[in-house]
Structure formats: structure tokens, C-alpha cells
């Protein structure tokens, strides 16, 4: 079964600084990978996804992520964070050929933005 590890429970970044959130997955083949963001009391909003092709994917709100097969990683980056980026970030993996099976989520990384 696939699994997702987000090793950082909390990350604090100064406004305007760069950001990298880590995500590692365990899966026997090429997975489908997602990053979602969740503001307090809200549902999940898709930031970006990787299905195939270019390993550097661009998302909304200035986020990007890079799929590295050799490291089983799909880290999320942003060059300059804004206070509105403070939220919970979830990495998720889906199974190729899984049909309608649900996603497996990591435990999330809580992003705090310092003024």
C-alpha cells in the first residue's frame, strides 16, 4: 500500500522568504501526486498535481513542485511567501489504475508566517 510522509509538522517562515515543504511517498510504481492547502475550518483546495510528463509542475498562488523519482519526493516550493499562505498543507498520492480509489494523505505541514 502506498504511504506519504511529510516530515515537518510545523514550519515557520518570514514573510517574503522562500519556502520548501517536503513530501516523500512510498509506492512501487509512478504515483499520481497532489498538494492541497487547507485554511482553518475550510475544505481542501488543490494547489497542483503531477500525473506524468514534466517533473516540475506549476500550480496556483505561485506554488510549484518537483517530482524526483530517485528520491521518491514531491516537494512544494514558493519563492516568496505571503501572510495569506499561512495554512495546513497536505501532500497526497493516488494509485495508477486505482480507478475511483481515494487518495492517501500525509499528516500535513502547518505553515506559520512571521511578519
Amino acid at each position, binding site marked *: 500500500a502506498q504511504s506519504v510522509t511529510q516530515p515537518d509538522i510545523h514550519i515557520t517562515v518570514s514573510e517574503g522568504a522562500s519556502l520548501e515543504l517536503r513530501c516523500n511517498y512510498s509506492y512501487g510504481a509512478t504515483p499520481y501526486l497532489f498538494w492541497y492547502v487547507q485554511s482553518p475550518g475550510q475544505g481542501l483546495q488543490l494547489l497542483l498535481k503531477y500525473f506524468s510528463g514534466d517533473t516540475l509542475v506549476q500550480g496556483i498562488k505561485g506554488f510549484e513542485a518537483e517530482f524526483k523519482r530517485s528520491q521518491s519526493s514531491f516537494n512544494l516550493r514558493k519563492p516568496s511567501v505571503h501572510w495569506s499562505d499561512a495554512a495546513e498543507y497536505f501532500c497526497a498520492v493516488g494509485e495508477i489504475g486505482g480507478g475511483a480509489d481515494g487518495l492517501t494523505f500525509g*499528516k*500535513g505541514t502547518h505553515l506559520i508566517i512571521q511578519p
Partner: protein
Amino acid sequence: DAMVIQNPRYQVTQFGKPVTLSCSQTLNHNVMYWYQQKSSQAPKLLFHYYDKDFNNEADTPDNFQSRRPNTSFCFLDIRSPGLGDAAMYLCATSRVEAGEFADTQYFGPGTRLTVL
């Protein structure tokens, strides 16, 4: 805008009193999912409907049931809520073509359930 709608946004129930949460979608997606998210935890899949076919996760308690009367609506029924069932319940939808992986899952805003 096409979207996933959940009602109510906040639900308070008493221990053991049945409760129903509602999800509707205007995306015309053929798959609808229910996830449970407890405080500071990742969403956990409870079950999903692929068209009319119900698919239960192996570790979903029998206390949780679901109904999908039509493409647009899906309900989560908790027959006898316990204190441990207090959580955010997220509905999601996606479109699956036969034999393919589901496309992106689109989530509703969630219903926060409190059990007194």
C-alpha cells in the same frame, strides 16, 4: 461556478442520536467520496460511490453509512455517534473514465460535527 456543497457547515448532535450530513455537486462527477478528518490529522477515506456502486474502506466502522440517491447528492449517516466521531467530514468528487485513474478530487468546505 461548478462546485461541491456541504450542508450544514456545523452540526451538533447528542451522543447516540443519529445524524445525517449532506453533500451535493454541480460538477456532474461520477465518483463521490467521504473523508473523516480529526483535529490536526490527515483526511481519512471512509467510503466512496462510483456511480451507484458503494465501496467501503475495510476499517470504516459499521456505524457509518452512506446513500447516493442520484448523481448530484450523497449523504453520510452516522447511526449512533460517539464522542470519538467528532471531526470534520469532507466530501469530494472526481470523474473516472472506465479503466483509468480518477482525475483530481474536488473537495467541499466540510461539515464540522460536534458530539455532546
